[in-house]
């Protein structure tokens, strides 16, 4: 196993290298967290937690994947921890159904999330799509956000999620199907 000079310097606690690493990855980490959590403050918290974890655990980094993949893994893991622990603030919003059946209507009281990187003409629709993304199972949500928000390839996503490329393809197909169902239900209730 050959560790890159960057990793060696990080392990030695080199301050300048750590600052450069943060500079290089801060926006990627923040945008992944923002796409996953759909909450500015929580995404900033996760960004801090990710770099703290990187600094603390770089000694345990075995170099079996790229530094970028490792940092993305930590980001996804920390974001999922936030989602699972329910730290995200509940916000008021619109009624949504996952299955389209009245007895299984899932009522989400969430305010729309406006991603700052979205073009103005797509702002409202992107907010609806983000609300639908928030209803996806975590694996589908992770794959979809990494692909659509971060622009990562399926190969990169497979490495980050530690699954095969075909699994990522499958996750993406199911995510899109589910999103279409959710959007169809929303359209019937709100747009028609």
């Amino acid at each position, binding site marked *: 196993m050959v560790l890159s000079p960057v990793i060696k310097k990080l392990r030695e*606690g080199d*301050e300048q290298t*750590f*600052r450069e690493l*943060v500079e290089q990855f*801060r*926006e*990627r980490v*923040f*945008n992944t967290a*923002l796409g996953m959590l759909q909450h500015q403050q929580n995404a*900033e918290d996760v*960004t*801090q937690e990710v*770099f*703290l974890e990187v*600094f603390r655990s770089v000694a345990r980094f075995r170099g079996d994947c790229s530094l970028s993949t490792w940092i993305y893994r930590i980001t996804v893991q920390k974001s999922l921890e936030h989602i699972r622990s329910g730290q995200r603030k509940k916000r008021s919003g619109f009624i949504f159904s996952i299955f389209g059946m009245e007895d299984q209507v899932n009522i989400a009281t969430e305010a729309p999330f406006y*991603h*700052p*990187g*979205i*073009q103005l003409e*797509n702002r409202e*629709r*992107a907010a*609806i*799509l983000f609300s639908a993304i928030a209803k996806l199972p975590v694996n589908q949500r992770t794959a979809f956000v990494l692909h*659509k*928000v971060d622009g990562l390839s399926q190969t990169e996503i497979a490495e980050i999620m530690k699954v095969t490329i075909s699994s990522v393809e499958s996750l993406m197909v199911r995510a*899109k199907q589910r*999103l*279409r169902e959710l*959007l*169809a239900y929303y*359209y*019937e209730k709100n*747009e*028609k």
Partner: protein
Amino acid sequence: MTAGFYKNQHQKDMNAKEKWINETMGALDGIRRAHVNPELIDGFTTKIIHQKQKTSKIRPAVLWRVAATLAILISLNILGAIYYRQSYNTSQETTKAVASEYLYYLGPIKL
């Protein structure tokens, strides 16, 4: 109103719905990275580095003292255990010797 009219209307509705869904699905196309507040990042980067340095300064001294204390405590415990075991064996042997001698002088017990 004929069946054909309703069929056409339904088809129009479906097309509008599909169009809306497709457009919404494509709403993230061309998304740009959001910018994170650089001051926030600089602030916590400095904090993390200082925390690490502070921890690094304290750690060796505290670690050696704790290790030395633990070593002394463990040694004392082991020595104590060995001494107790030896004294226990000795006292048992002494008791047996005294008991046998005392019972010898008493003679056999008659019931």
